């Protein structure tokens, strides 16, 4: 079932002093319910702009974007679209509103005018889903980056969205925080069936997704499973992207004439592939 559907989506920034700057050019993309999509692309390729279209923060200047059959261009539907598609931003410090964790998580449902008893239930559920329930009365500024970002995710979950879009949620975190956030997102997708669109710069994170979409110069450049995408090492290098380190290692060994598969993603697969190649050779 289709959740988000972009059809020839165009977007350009209009600035009276400068010529208009086109950021998205005819983007055609569909996101299915329950998918975990990683959105890749180097800086300025339009991936953040696209994410802001998914919850009607930006409106297309051409083409259409449908979220559960609601057209984002209809401003009357903006609130309905935003409660279906929750957007989590990069800097956790700048998206928390309140000085108490649970009150921050309650902010979304409070804005939707939900009954207090139901808000309490949703806040507790959301905090449990991101594994931060024990911190509900803490002050956000005393938490770690990963914990703050999980609170931000809980804040979006409390609106009961069908899809969460994360715009480089791990970019400002240390490795531990990154792992926490990634695990949380993956669990939400697997166990709660949440549709996830995650923009990331880390190829290892993208490798954990069901599907990878690569953007370049405002267009969808490649679209496929992580294996299909990352096996095309050269094509990715053309658009200034890396591949996961195990994939890269295998690619370089292949260039030296080793007979290794092209679609290696994880360290374990890489070890197995090299081991069996060496065995065969011996």
């Amino acid at each position, binding site marked *: 079932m289709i959740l988000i559907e972009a059809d020839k989506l165009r977007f350009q920034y209009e600035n009276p002093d400068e010529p208009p700057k086109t950021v998205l050019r005819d983007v055609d993309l569909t996101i299915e319910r329950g998918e975990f999509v990683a959105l890749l692309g180097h800086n300025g390729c339009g991936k953040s702009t696209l994410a802001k279209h998914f*919850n009607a*923060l930006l409106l297309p200047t051409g083409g259409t974007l449908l979220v559960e059959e609601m057209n984002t261009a209809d401003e009357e539907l903006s*609130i309905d679209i*935003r*409660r279906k598609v*929750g*957007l*989590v*931003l990069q*800097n956790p*410090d*700048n*998206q*928390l*509103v*309140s*000085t*108490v964790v*649970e*009150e921050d998580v*309650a*902010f*979304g*449902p*409070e*804005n*939707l*005018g*939900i*009954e*207090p008893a139901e*808000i*309490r239930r949703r*806040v507790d559920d959301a905090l449990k889903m991101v594994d931060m329930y024990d911190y509900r009365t803490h*002050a*956000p*500024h005393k938490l770690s980056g990963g914990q703050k970002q999980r609170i*931000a995710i809980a*804040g*979006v979950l409390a*609106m009961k969205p069908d899809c969460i879009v994360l715009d480089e949620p791990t970019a400002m975190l240390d490795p531990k925080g990154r792992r926490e956030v990634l695990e949380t997102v993956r669990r939400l997708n697997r166990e709660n069936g949440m549709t996830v669109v995650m923009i990331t710069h880390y190829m290892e994170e993208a490798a954990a997704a069901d599907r990878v979409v690569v953007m370049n110069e405002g267009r969808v450049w490649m679209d496929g499973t992580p294996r299909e995408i990352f096996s095309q090492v050269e094509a990715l290098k053309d658009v200034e992207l890396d591949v996961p380190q195990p994939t890269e290692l295998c690619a370089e060994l292949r260039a030296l004439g080793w007979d290794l598969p092209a679609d290696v993603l994880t360290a374990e697969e890489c070890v197995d592939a090299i081991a069996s190649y060496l065995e065969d050779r011996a």
Partner: protein
Amino acid sequence: MLNDITMGQYFPGNSLLHRLDPRVKLLVTFVYIIAVFIPQNWTGLAVAVAFLLLCVALSKLPVRLITKTFKPIIPLILLTSILNVFYLDSGNVWWDAGFFKLTDHGVYTAIFIAIRILCLIAGSSLLTYTTTPTALTDGLERLLNPLRALHVPVHELAMMMTIALRFIPTLIEETDKIMAAQKARGADMESGGMMQRIRAFLPVLIPLFVSSFRRAYDLATAMECRCYRGGEGRTRMNRLQMHGRDVATLLFTAVFVAALIVLNIVLPSTL
């Protein structure tokens, strides 16, 4: 260095005063600030002081926390006392230096007013000591809610206060970071005269300002993502509820104010 600033001056506890509804505490403090000016005789003033001492006792906070708040206002008290002693020359003269008469009336008035000021300060600090900033903003929003009929943006003001409180620690942390960065590049912020120090602080303030705007922009986006549309149609998770103790406190305060008025009528004025 900047971490020394105690946030909102709240001291956690579970006393009766801590548990009272913030609206009641705000109201009682407001009434008390006015009530302190009712007594015109020593008995009335003693009742006002007794009310305050009762509150301090109920708060279970160490008394030195309260006396600490007196320190910054000592100059003010001295100034008003001197003015009173100088300008009031009615009553029995104790000492006459021609241009200046020390009278019992002047001295008593000075003491009277000093006690009033101390009561004001202690009363209002007791409010912030026993109420979290969040509860305070919450109480204020609900207490001022009727003013919305007069187009006072009550919700917006409360939201601004909440956000300001939320960002104080974040900005303090950032200031520390920028200062460290500037010091690492040789900035000298601890020596020289006042002007020189102010000038040395500019390279800290400008990046702080720029980043505050970026943060504000991000926060606005995040709030929009979470369907924020202002106060219209908004509900709250935590509802404030009046308990027996709140009603009792309000009644007790009413009796206290009535007592002050009665004492004024029955007893002669000392001022």
